[in-house]
């Protein structure tokens, strides 16, 4: 079968990719969205979203992204499940190779997002799924009435620590600095919560246990005193890594692996755009991802018209 050449392929089905898909279909571009799992991205694991406008009571991450997906369905956005392995150029075509097939497009929007970062300490991999977790909404209920630790100090860590208070009786919030980085309203809630005990200026050295997590060893930032907190779970929420391995060496990446774009979401490669968490940007939120997606399509359309 001759493979079609799409006007636009969007890689990634989080908020940036879904918004791009919506705009592209409304512009009648021959579009394909490729997603590794089901559309949603990191929002799928977000318990509650209070900072995305239009939902006065807030909305669960899952419901929000499901609404976004249904909206793209209304405009008949084709979605394929595949994991993309590599990108190559055959000017002006972009060839995208996945595990199930090869896809060709004149323009590409990279919205492949980011995944949770690991701590990289002993015990972390060994005890993955056995008390070490990166998803509070997935695994929180397994820690009913237990003592756990949350590592991190940003929005995700603090919000998820608050969520985990529904289950755990005590939560050590381990942060390497002496104050949290999260939005003020989240900080205030967390610090006022009786079940959350902040552990300041501390780094995790290792996670203890053989079949199950038994504790987490921490040391002071200056290396002075070390101690072990007795916990049954460790939630690691220390930021994200961009999903950009597949773009090497075609698209230039910054030292952290993020994609640098101009204000129109264009990468240095003509016809390749990026949107959402995968971009080098100041604030990675649903609200900023959505704007990126819309802009990227508008820029891609201009590019296609000029071809």
């Amino acid at each position: 079968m001759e493979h079609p050449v799409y006007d636009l392929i969007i890689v990634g089905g989080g908020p940036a990719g879904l918004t791009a898909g919506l705009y592209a279909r409304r512009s009648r571009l021959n579009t394909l969205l490729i997603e590794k799992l089901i559309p949603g991205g990191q929002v799928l694991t977000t318990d509650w979203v209070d900072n995305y406008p239009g939902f006065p009571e807030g909305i669960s991450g899952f419901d929000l992204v499901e609404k976004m997906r249904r909206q793209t369905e209304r405009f008949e956005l084709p979605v394929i499940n595949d994991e993309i392995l590599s990108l190559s150029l055959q000017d002006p075509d972009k060839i995208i190779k996945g595990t199930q097939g090869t896809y060709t497009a004149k323009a590409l929007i990279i919205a492949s997002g980011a995944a949770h970062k690991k701590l990289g300490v002993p015990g972390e991999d060994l005890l993955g799924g056995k008390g070490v977790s990166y998803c509070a909404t997935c695994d929180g209920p397994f820690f009913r009435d237990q003592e756990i630790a949350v590592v991190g100090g940003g929005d995700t860590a603090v919000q998820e620590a608050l969520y985990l208070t529904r289950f755990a009786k005590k939560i050590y919030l381990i942060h390497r600095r002496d104050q949290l980085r999260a939005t003020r309203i989240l900080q205030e809630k967390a610090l006022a919560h009786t079940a959350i005990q902040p552990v300041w200026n501390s780094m995790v050295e290792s996670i203890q246990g053989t079949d199950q997590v038994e504790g987490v060893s921490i040391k002071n930032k200056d290396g002075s005193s070390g101690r072990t907190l007795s916990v049954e779970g460790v939630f690691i929420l220390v930021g994200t890594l961009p999903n950009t391995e597949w773009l090497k060496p075609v698209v230039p990446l910054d030292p952290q692996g993020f994609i640098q774009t101009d204000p129109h979401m264009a990468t240095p490669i003509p016809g390749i755009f990026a949107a959402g968490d995968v971009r080098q940007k100041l604030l990675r939120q649903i609200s900023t991802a959505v704007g990126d997606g819309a802009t990227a399509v508008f820029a891609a359309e201009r590019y296609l018209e000029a071809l």
Partner: protein
Amino acid sequence: MGEKNITEVTDENFQTEILESSTPVLVDFWAVWCGPCKAIAPTVEELAVQFQGQVKIGKLNVDENPKTPGQYGIRAIPTLILFKNGTVVEQITGAVSKSTLETAIKKTL
């Protein structure tokens, strides 16, 4: 959809359906409140069609069946466990890609 190829696994039928199964079994431990579980569900259904007759695919709801996940020390979902002749061959946590699961299944065949 491969719905009909998927066995509903419970604490009650775990022994007969999984441990005494004549073919290898992949069990997806999931819950309704888990986003990544929903993310991986279509992949599990595709595998059920792809490996029909070779591998049994089951789903166990951890809320309704707390005993079995406890026995296997499961504290994260989705967890997918591959059983062969009643023993655990591989245990995979998180919403992994289809190719990861295919590779694991093919190793047991």
